[in-house]
């Protein structure tokens, strides 16, 4: 069983449309756990209004983090067994991320999975980010269109289980304390 996760945060104008993910649609028939979300700018503003109304500091951070985004697309497929998607599916996505402006900035490779983060820059600012993660029983695609503020995204650390970026040489006890969600 393979898990495949793709998270895409795209540059500020229409990259979600340029990224063709329709070939993944056939996977929906192979799983009973599918998440499909498409949030345009209007819905993002609408939802952000409620999020900030929460008056919860964490919610405010989320609101700040999504402030510059124009579209979020999520596709998530969870499979009951291996091999429900083919390596070719993954390759097709990677092929689209090799165009001008895209660069892979991080990769975490494990025995059965691989996660990569790609950035697309536009002039001075970071225009978008792509994360592709492959694991045994899950396929998830998230595409975010808009200008992403990595600092604000980093401030979500802890809110959604994101461990904050830490100094690897900190004492173990301090590290454990910070790992607490």
């Amino acid at each position, binding site marked *: 069983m393979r898990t495949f996760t793709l*998270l895409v945060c795209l540059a500020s104008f229409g990259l979600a449309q340029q990224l063709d993910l329709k070939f993944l649609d056939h996977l929906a028939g192979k799983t009973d756990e599918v998440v499909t979300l498409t949030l345009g700018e209007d*819905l993002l503003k609408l*939802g952000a209004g*409620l999020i900030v109304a929460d008056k919860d500091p964490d919610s405010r951070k989320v609101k700040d983090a999504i402030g510059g985004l124009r579209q979020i697309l*999520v596709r998530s497929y969870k499979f009951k067994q291996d091999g429900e998607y083919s390596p070719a599916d993954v390759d097709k996505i990677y092929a689209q991320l090799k165009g001008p402006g895209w660069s892979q900035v991080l990769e*975490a490779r494990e025995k059965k999975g691989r996660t990569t983060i790609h950035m697309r820059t536009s002039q001075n600012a970071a225009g978008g980010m792509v994360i592709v*993660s492959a694991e045994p029983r899950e396929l998830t695609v998230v595409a975010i269109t808009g200008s992403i503020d990595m600092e604000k*995204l980093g401030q979500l650390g802890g809110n*959604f289980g994101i461990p904050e970026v830490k100094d*690897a040489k900190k004492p173990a006890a301090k590290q454990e304390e910070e790992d607490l969600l």
Partner: protein
Amino acid sequence: MDFEQELKRALGRQQPPAGFAQRVMARVERRRPSPASYRIGPRWAQWAVAASLIVASATGTSWYRQRQERARAEEARQQILLAMRVTAEKIGHVQQTIKRISLEEN
């Protein structure tokens, strides 16, 4: 000391405070629609009900629109949070893996 045995003992199942099942069932009952009452009262009461319905229908449209909008916003909010959670988990996974590899190399 058998550490794992001690852990099993410390983490045994625990009964909730007395009356837990009743409190859950009370919440279940509150969620059930109550049987409709068909008892028809005196005429003045019927007029009162009719008047109330007219007032309700006059204000209902606006209320309904607000409610629809609110529901739409709530749905958007949930979707945003779900999307951000997926995003955050994947980034967290990368960070953790990189951190672990970095620690192993050191």
